[in-house]
């Protein structure tokens, strides 16, 4: 192997698209390490605090595409205090100096300031794609800078971010010379955009394939846009409200007939159900439908719509659909691979909109299903066992029973057997979220059968340390473990400290681990950052080691404790 000149190795390595493969080849020998190092263009960093930006730049000097993730997953559910961290600025500051060729950035759960967006927009002449998912800290001013300065921008995709809307003219900041847009998603913005500028932008970007509008864009404008861009493949509607007798609606009906390429549909934040027939022609070819924000589409309107969607592969929906609606899905959507059913009633008493019966129906009809997120009121072991038998191909199985410690509602037993069946049957399972009444037994099953499991989310489950130990000992491929409100303590935490270096991170909140236990762990494992989040007892020096820790987040890192931790985060 030594006599392969490096110029030959490089194009060979080009064929390796997976980062895992590239990581593997870089370990073969120094020469291969060098070739990979200089030719690596795409880097994925699952935890922004695992490495410092400088180390990334030193190791891979010619990166063009970077994926960065910041806050832990439970930050989505308000379990992580607001200013915990995950700041993007240090990264962009370092990259601006060294990566002239940066083209793509994808950030998730990071704090992104307008300043960093402005720096980004000015520093990379070839910059093409910015995707921000669940980020915060920026306003439409930052977006204006991106629009104005990134001359070759192809993609601006904002997914579920908290953006401060200054109701400015950010959309008008795209210069007339910008004709390269392929994808634009501003559905999460709350403020109005300049509709004239929007129409002009759409008109001059012939390659626009994906457009997701926000709720301030009215139906008339949707019609005009579709007229200009019949080539769209992915559409997110804005406000879909109109009198079905009105002229704009009638125009829309006709315009839609010409939009033969739409495969993915979303939006409908505001909707007049009587206007839905206009999009039925689109439904016939849809592979992806996201109605999870469409609280105005219910009952018969929803089911009528689903009846048209028989090529659907991905469906995100609210639990208005009900068990009967899910039976319609099961009989109509035979190609379904991914299903997410979100709860509509977050605060009220709640009527059982979907139950285990809907899930069983889906499992009988949708044999290609491999990804599930299901919020429901109740579940039974029998149902889960049936689902496991019908759908052995699950790679992602997330079940959320709204009452988190609810038992099998028929037998009043814990749901151990049901989940046990899932992990035993679905040999390719990579991600699992549990809920309902669960004892240590379920963890026994998980440790025994869930060999491919990479991410596990546990809440209000288990009886003692044994539960956690089953998982840590059994799941060889575990990367992320997040636990809340479970009776797991120091004994479990400290049994196999080396395990955590094989994982990306561990989160434990409202468990039994103590300050003393965390200190021991931190001392034994210098390659881990063990962070304690304590919002109450901030400055107390003489805290007892037997104190139970409110929230602990530990992760492996190459660069030691982070320097941007706020007061309430202690790095042990």
């Amino acid at each position, binding site marked *: 192997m030594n006599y392969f000149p490096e110029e030959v190795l490089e194009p060979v390595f080009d064929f390796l698209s997976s980062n895992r493969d590239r990581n593997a080849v870089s370990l073969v020998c120094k020469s291969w390490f060098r070739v990979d190092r200089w030719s690596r263009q795409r880097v994925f960093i699952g935890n922004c605090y695992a490495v410092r930006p400088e180390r990334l730049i030193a190791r891979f000097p010619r990166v063009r595409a970077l994926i960065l993730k910041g806050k832990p997953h439970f930050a989505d559910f*308000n379990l992580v205090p607001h200013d915990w961290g995950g700041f993007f600025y240090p990264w962009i500051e370092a990259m601006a100096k060294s990566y002239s060729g940066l083209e793509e950035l994808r950030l998730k759960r990071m704090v992104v300031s307008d300043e960093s967006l402005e720096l980004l927009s000015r520093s990379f002449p070839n910059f093409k794609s910015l995707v921000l998912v669940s980020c915060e800290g920026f306003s439409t001013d930052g977006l204006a800078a991106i629009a104005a300065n990134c001359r070759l921008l192809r993609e601006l995709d904002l997914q579920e971010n908290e953006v401060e809307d200054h109701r400015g003219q950010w959309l008008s900041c795209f210069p007339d010379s910008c004709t390269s847009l392929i994808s634009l998603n501003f559905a999460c913005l709350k403020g109005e955009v300049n509709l004239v500028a929007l129409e002009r932008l759409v008109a001059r970007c012939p390659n626009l394939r994906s457009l997701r509008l926000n709720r301030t864009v009215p139906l008339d404008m949707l019609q005009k846009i579709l007229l200009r861009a019949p080539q769209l493949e992915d559409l997110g509607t804005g406000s879909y409200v109109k009198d079905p007798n009105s*002229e704009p609606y009638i125009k829309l009906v006709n315009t839609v007939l010409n939009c033969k390429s739409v495969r993915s549909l979303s939006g409908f934040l505001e909707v007049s159900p009587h206007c839905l027939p206009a999009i039925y022609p689109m439904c016939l070819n849809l592979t992806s439908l996201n109605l999870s924000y469409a609280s*105005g589409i219910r009952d018969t309107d929803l089911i009528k719509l689903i009846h048209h969607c028989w090529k659907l592969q991905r469906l995100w929906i609210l639990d208005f659909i009900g068990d009967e609606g899910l039976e319609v899905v099961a009989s109509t959507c035979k190609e379904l691979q991914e299903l997410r059913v979100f709860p509509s009633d*977050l605060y009220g*008493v709640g009527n059982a909109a979907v139950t285990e019966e809907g899930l069983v129906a889906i499992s009988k009809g949708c044999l290609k299903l491999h990804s599930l997120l299901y919020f429901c009121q109740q579940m039974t072991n029998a149902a889960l066992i049936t689902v496991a038998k019908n759908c052995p191909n699950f790679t992602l199985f997330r079940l959320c029973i709204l009452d988190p410690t609810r*038992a099998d509602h028929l037998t009043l037993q814990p749901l151990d057997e049901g989940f046990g069946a899932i992990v035993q049957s679905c040999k390719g399972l990579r991600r699992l979220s549990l809920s309902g009444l669960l*004892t240590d037994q379920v963890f026994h099953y998980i440790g025994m059968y869930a060999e491919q499991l990479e991410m596990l989310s546990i*809440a209000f489950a288990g009886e003692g340390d044994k539960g956690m130990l089953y998982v840590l000992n059994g799941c060889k491929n575990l990367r992320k473990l997040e636990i809340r409100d479970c009776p797991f303590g120091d004994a479990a935490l400290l049994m196999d400290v080396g395990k955590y270096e094989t994982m990306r991170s561990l989160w434990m909140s409202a468990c039994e681990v103590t300050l003393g236990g965390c200190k021991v762990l931190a001392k034994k494992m210098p390659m881990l950052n063990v962070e304690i989040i304590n919002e109450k007892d901030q400055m107390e020096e003489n805290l007892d080691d037997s*104190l139970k820790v409110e929230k602990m987040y530990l992760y492996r890192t190459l660069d030691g404790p982070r320097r941007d931790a706020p007061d309430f985060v202690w790095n042990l």
Partner: protein
Amino acid sequence: MEGTVTFESDLNLKATELRLGLPGTNESEKQTPPSVRSNKRALPDMNEESRSKNYSSVTEAAGHGDRETAPPSKAQVVGWPPIRSYRKNSFQPKKTEADADAEATGIYVKVSMDGAPFLRKVDLKVYKGYPELLKALENMFKFSIGEYSERDGYTRSEFVPTYEDKDGDWMLLGDVPWDMFISSCKKLRIMKGSEARGLGCGV
């Protein structure tokens, strides 16, 4: 380290008790498998003694079989159900079921026009304001209404749009804020000719 299930019976903490269930549900299932100990402790910020070693169970003891309806102001478990805040914030909470129904089905009111052989109906929810509604009415009945002015009403046209409000009075369209209008409008009437002139005058 397993705690015991305690139940605060002396103090009436039930009203403010943090529960794992949704409001209106009871932990009736907790009675069974005796091997399951509910070690769940109350979340620290709900607990009076913040750093105590004992922890009171957040579940109720055995004895309650039926579901009761509880007042809607029950405490919620932080971060449960696990839904992104962005998604939670996107839903405007429905105050009452009546409101929810109204939002789902729209506000349909009859529209009559003097001289027209039959009435129509419009869904007021569909319009964002007076200009849109007026345009729709103009299209529906094929007439022209001109512009509204606070002082003179609709003076450019022989048609005047009016509505009957909750008190049964006939009002000129456009005087009150839109939201107030749609909540008080019971029916619409487009007046024509001499009858209209009286309403159109400013005071």
